[in-house]
């Protein structure tokens, strides 16, 4: 698990120390009867904007503003730090008000999707490397089609004899498999059941085939393996590409909610905490 989450141990130490400083200074500040929520809120908002700034930095890749990897480390660091600030801000209680509850949920979704993405982006590359050919995600339909075309032509070739064992088998068991991405959940769970079932069916079919058909079947088996690997790649590449679909859009709504919350609080909070 070397360097799985943080690049080095110092980062973790820094995180712990900064968190402790924040908690301590917040408590000290509360002693002076100051509204710590205002302070934590302000810092939180700044952090939020800085975190969102990571997206902007990606766009500004042309400018010399540090390596993105450094920014990402900072993004993760700051993101985790906001959880500490957030806990202080909400005083470890689930907000009662509807608006604030929405804000609360929004933050949690963004935060946890971020954490999930962080872990996923450390775990999935290894999985992707472990199985199947590394392909470009956008081109997976193309490769899938190529496999399918090849399978179809194989099936057509074997259709010469009158007893069309392989076309029947194809129609019965293989067509749906080759038509699109299949067994996504099984891949996620690392289950190989579908492959075992299919190979059992193929083994069961073998006694009924002549040598030519057996050769075709062998080729089909290879294509099944290819397609299954492609599915595997598809699922995990999709996961790693789709988590930002939660994280990024909700960040925008979070910022809007947070700004609105800030305004409302500044206007109303003088009589409440």
């Amino acid at each position: 698990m070397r360097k799985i989450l943080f690049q080095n141990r110092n980062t973790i130490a820094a995180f712990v120390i900064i968190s402790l400083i924040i908690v301590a200074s917040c408590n000290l500040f509360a002693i002076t009867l100051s509204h710590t929520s205002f302070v934590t809120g302000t810092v939180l908002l700044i952090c939020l904007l800085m975190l969102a700034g990571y997206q902007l930095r990606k766009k500004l890749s042309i400018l010399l503003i540090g390596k993105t990897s450094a920014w990402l480390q900072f993004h993760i660091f700051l993101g985790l730090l906001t959880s500490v600030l957030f806990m202080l801000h909400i005083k470890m209680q689930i907000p009662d008000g509807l608006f604030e509850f929405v804000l609360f949920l929004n933050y949690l979704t963004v935060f946890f999707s971020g954490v999930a993405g962080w872990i996923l982006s450390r775990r999935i590359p290894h999985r992707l490397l472990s199985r199947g050919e590394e392909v470009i995600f956008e081109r997976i339909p193309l490769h899938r089609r190529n496999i399918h075309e090849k399978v179809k032509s194989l099936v057509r070739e074997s259709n010469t004899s009158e007893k069309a064992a392989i076309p029947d088998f194809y129609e019965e068991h293989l067509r749906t498999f080759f038509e699109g991405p299949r067994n996504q959940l099984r891949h996620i769970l690392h289950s190989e059941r579908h492959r075992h079932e299919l190979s059992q069916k193929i083994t069961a079919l073998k006694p009924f085939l002549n040598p030519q058909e057996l050769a075709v079947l062998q080729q089909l088996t290879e294509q099944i393996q290819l397609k299954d690997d492609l599915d595997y790649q598809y699922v995990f590449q999709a996961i790693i590409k789709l988590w930002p679909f939660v994280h990024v859009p909700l960040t925008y709504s979070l910022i809007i909610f947070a700004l609105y919350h800030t305004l409302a609080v500044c206007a109303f909070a003088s009589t409440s905490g």
Partner: protein
Amino acid sequence: MTEQLQPFDWKSSNYERPANTWVCGRLCEEGLPCRLGPGSKGDCQVQSRCEPEEKGGKYQCSRSTLHGGKCKTGPAPDGTCCQPDTSCQPRRSLLARRRLLGGIAAFIAASLCLIIFGGASPSPLLSPGAVTASHAKIESNCTACHTAAEGGLGTWIHIAFNHETALKDSALCLKCHAELGNEALFAHGVSLNRLAEITARIQTKNEPVSTPIALQLASLTGPPATKDQLSCSTCHREHHGRKADLTHLTDLQCQTCHTRQFEDFQHGHPALGDYPYNRRSRIYFDHDAHLNRYFVKEEFKRTMPAGVKPDSCNSCHTPDASGRFMLTGSFQNTCASCHEPQIEDLEFPGVPFFALPTISPQIMKAQGAWPNTTGTFKTARLPQLMELLLEQDPLYQNAITQLGTVDYRKLNNADPDQYAAVADIAWSIKRLLYDISTDGESVLQQRLGNSHPEYLHLNPSLIPTLSQAQQIWFPNLATEIKLHGENKPVPATAAKASKTQTSRIPRDAGNGWTLSESDFTIRYRPLGHADPLLKRWFDQVIQSQTQALDRDPMWRILSNPTASGTEDTQGALASGRCLMCHSVDQNPETGLSRINWLPLPVSQTTERFTQFSHAPHLSMGQYEKCAGCHAFEPSRPDNSAILQQDYFARAPSNLFWQINVDGQQTCTSGFQPVSHQTCVTCHNKTTETQSCLQCHNYHAHKRMEKP
């Protein structure tokens, strides 16, 4: 080894453009992308089909050279293009979809903010949580507490940048919470001057102790400015649920503004000083003597109520309904059985209010009747009231001037040439008596005027007794006055006729006034405890400077704790001496004094920083005995002597005691002050009952709920 899915060579794999907004729809659907790809606006650029042109009944291919020129096959006879339609509907790329989703999320959030939570006035949906139960009734009305609630978004923005808002909102709080006084928003609800005064006092009194580290660190961020008004929200934070404690503050928070900071109650809290004895008790009561002698020795047992000695403090002191104060039992219930007889003092003849001086008939001559002819007048002067009533009488004053120094004991020894003056005195008295018996109270009013209002409206009234005296002593006074007024000789015989009447008229009217025929004096003897006349007279007379009063004979008689009656009368110990037990307090600012008729005036002070409730302490097992906190001072050998000093001071003349009017002086109560350590035995870290708010009020002027 399976074959490679993807070729890398430049002919079969061109650049992938993930940054583009659109991708070929045919790639997504069929995996068959075209070479052209979609345009930047999401349009398919493939134009494999053309619109064949009709030329002379024949259709001709119109495909531009850019797209490959005219095709070989040409259009079908019906004018349709022969080429298959390979155009597609381009799809958004992953990046573009994410961007779109981001836009939608932002839009939804913004509309939620503006429509549901925004609007012209704030929606209750915006409320960050339930308010406490006591505010629940006004929860739905945001404007009750928030000035910002009066408008929509625009107002909010305006208000968010306004520094006054907090105070404006606090003013809304005070609309209901008027009990906090006019200066509620200042620190502790006291004026800045008062605060400075208290601060200065405490700073001089208390030794600086070590400040807790947390407070030292916190002070780096700067304590709240106490020089100005503070908003309610500084301490009270609402919208934290129905059951939230609005007044919860930690000890450190309480101390943050304070100049003297300390660890906790156990460590570093300023000593309690003489509290609760930082002033003498209002009733002079020698606990030591009572508890250790009277309530112990058998000889006093007979005077106790029902012959039972009090065995605990409860016999006299019981907590009030609120449990805060210990009330002292009424006089009737506690003191009377022993002290009522002393106050009644049956042997005390009373205070002379009116007396006829001894004037021999030869001095009176033909000046009319004068009953008191023999014996010696007991005092050098007339009773106080008489002197005052005669003060404005020109005749009397003239006579006094002629006589020089008047000693009524030696009036009969006057020179013959002074006889006329003495007669004038007699006549002045007779006229006074006549006036009063005929005109009553109005004469007192007229003669005393406003100079001595304390003698007006005496209750019970002196007038009936005076009238009675007139009838007895001067039955023919009206005739005599009339004759005297006409400068005719007045016969002295009239006095005799009165003697027949004497037995008929009761000498004692039962209201304290007595008419003594033997020495021709009208006296007032107090009826007992809380005598109305004396109480009223004291209340009025005490208003003036007590130093001057000490020379007032009447005051001397009535207030002197050591003497009773006139100065030559050896009366019993206690009669009439209200001030023997009831102390006098002088307000240092107004100079007015008042007599503490009651032992402990509840909620007398308007400024209260500390609250203490007896009842809970009494219910604590081992402290049930009051002595747990209120211990006797063992080192004092003679408590009573020292105690007395606090109430009475010997006048320079050493003849009588002066009333000590300084109520604030440190009192040697006979008890040890309640020590801080005593409190700490229970209020400490382990019991967690040592917070500031356990004993202290922030709002010093908060009106107490009536029990």
